[in-house]
């Protein structure tokens, strides 16, 4: 007797994708969890401890404290995006994505499973980087709810963006173009290392078009209580991007773009 399609069967399907993703991330921890922690530790040592001493204060606080939220956010963004592109494109390239495509799972469950896996990796890396940061600057927590919600929403937004990249990618080179030429510049110019209030008039206006500025600043507010932008505007922008990207992902998956003939 075949299985019945129900909310419970979808829940089992979602759990299966998530367990598979988490198992994969933990199995290759030396590739997925440790490198970003080492990179961020070097940032803390060089920009925080060595150069930071000469910079003095930024946004009314020691430079080391100022860069901690941005560097945590940087690792969350790159890991959520990178996880889903490599995992989903790998499944496409190896053809085992067909296991999911011929199954009864609807597109939104497949998407939810992969996004949850990417969020798991992003948050795990984020927490590890935070622990390393605590060694250099101690623990700070201004608002736990804002901190956690911004971290989670940012991870979801970049997982969705990475999913679109994976759908359109035809070769492995295609999944490194966006992170190198779009994501990295936007992140580095997104207020990780400096306050956008330091920029001259026009440059400041241009910087405020970058959505990552809002993510970094809202997260900085959660940890330290300071921000260059309105918190509610930041939430609105993140939720807006998340909704649009989710709709695009679902549309692409439902039409089978890059997946079905």
């Amino acid at each position: 007797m075949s299985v019945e399609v129900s909310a419970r069967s979808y829940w089992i399907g979602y759990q299966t994708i998530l367990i598979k993703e988490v198992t994969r991330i933990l199995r290759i921890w030396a590739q997925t969890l440790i490198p970003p922690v080492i990179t961020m530790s070097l940032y803390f040592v060089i920009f925080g401890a060595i150069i930071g001493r000469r910079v003095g204060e930024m946004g009314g606080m020691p430079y080391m404290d100022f860069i901690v939220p941005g560097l945590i956010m940087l690792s969350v963004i790159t890991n959520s995006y990178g996880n889903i592109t490599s995992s989903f494109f790998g499944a496409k390239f190896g053809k085992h994505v067909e296991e999911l495509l011929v199954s009864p799972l609807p597109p939104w469950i497949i998407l939810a499973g992969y996004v949850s896996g990417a969020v798991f990796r992003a948050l795990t890396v984020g927490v590890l980087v935070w622990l390393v940061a605590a060694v250099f600057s101690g623990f700070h927590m201004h608002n736990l709810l804002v901190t956690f919600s911004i971290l989670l929403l940012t991870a979801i937004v970049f997982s969705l963006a990475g999913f679109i990249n994976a759908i359109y990618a035809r070769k492995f080179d295609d999944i490194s173009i966006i992170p190198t030429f779009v994501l990295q510049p936007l992140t580095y110019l997104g207020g990780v290392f400096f306050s956008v209030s330091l920029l001259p008039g026009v440059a400041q206006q241009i910087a405020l078009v970058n959505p990552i500025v809002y993510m970094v600043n809202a997260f900085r507010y959660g940890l330290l209580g300071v921000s260059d932008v309105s918190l509610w505007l930041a939430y609105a922008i993140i939720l807006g991007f998340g909704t649009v990207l989710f709709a695009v992902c679902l549309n692409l998956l439902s039409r089978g773009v890059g997946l079905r003939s």
Partner: protein
Amino acid sequence: MNALEVSQLKKTYKNGVEALKGIDLTVAEGDFFALLGPNGAGKSTLIGIVSSMVNASAGETSVFGISVQKERSRAMAEIGLVPQEVNFNQFEKPFDIIVNQAGYYGVPRRIARERAEYYLKKLSLWDKAFTMSRTMSGGMKRRLLIARAMVHEPRLLILDEPTAGVDIEIRRSMWKFIEEINAAGTTVILTTHYLEEAENLCRNIAIIDQGRIVEDTSVKELLSKLDIETFVLDLRAPVEQVPSMDGIELVVRDATTLEASLPKSRSLTRLFRQLDEAGIEVISMRNKANRLEELFMRMVNLGGEKAA
């Protein structure tokens, strides 16, 4: 109820290739059905549409009365697919591959583990259950595809050339397993290049060529259309000259083997009498295998001529 109903199914790919030109097909529940056709005939496109991997350009497909186009999820729950190419993650273990596949179909993990063990044992793969699947042989990978397709216990099992490149012993064990599944009530649709497999296993058959069904009947009915039979004759001594016989085609295969093709209505006694008169002594005789192959070639060639 029919396991599969296909109505006026058409598929034109973006590059303009018209893979299916309005196909109608019905497969009854419990059937062991063969879908045959030359490469590029449209078999894989048809299977792709049924399994929702390919979007149809027009027409309807339903599985046990459930529309693939309108109720994809419910329809897919009824199907188990063994694809032509190995498409599992070769860096995973067979046990995990099967348990995960069961999960995609909503089978709870505890039951999935029990079924994974059952099907891996049934297909003689249990000793490889926890090794990396990429280390398995080609035949083992093919059997793993079958175990994976069966783990959610579908009512319709579709096998797309499952025995390609598999040695005879493993092929037989695979067919024994599939026959058991069919006997237990699962409908089986098979595409294969080994036509004797279709002849021996399947009850009904459809031949597809250039995007059209050129024959859809029972294997028995189809074989009855074969009005010429070919016999292989083993001779006691090498034949020096092939005698000419009216209405019988004699072909020398090697010095002591002749192939005689004659209409079914023709008496074999007459053939032997004429051979005896020509001084040719026959020591044994057998039917030439691959009767279906002959018909297949005829059907496909006919389809090609019609299309031209």
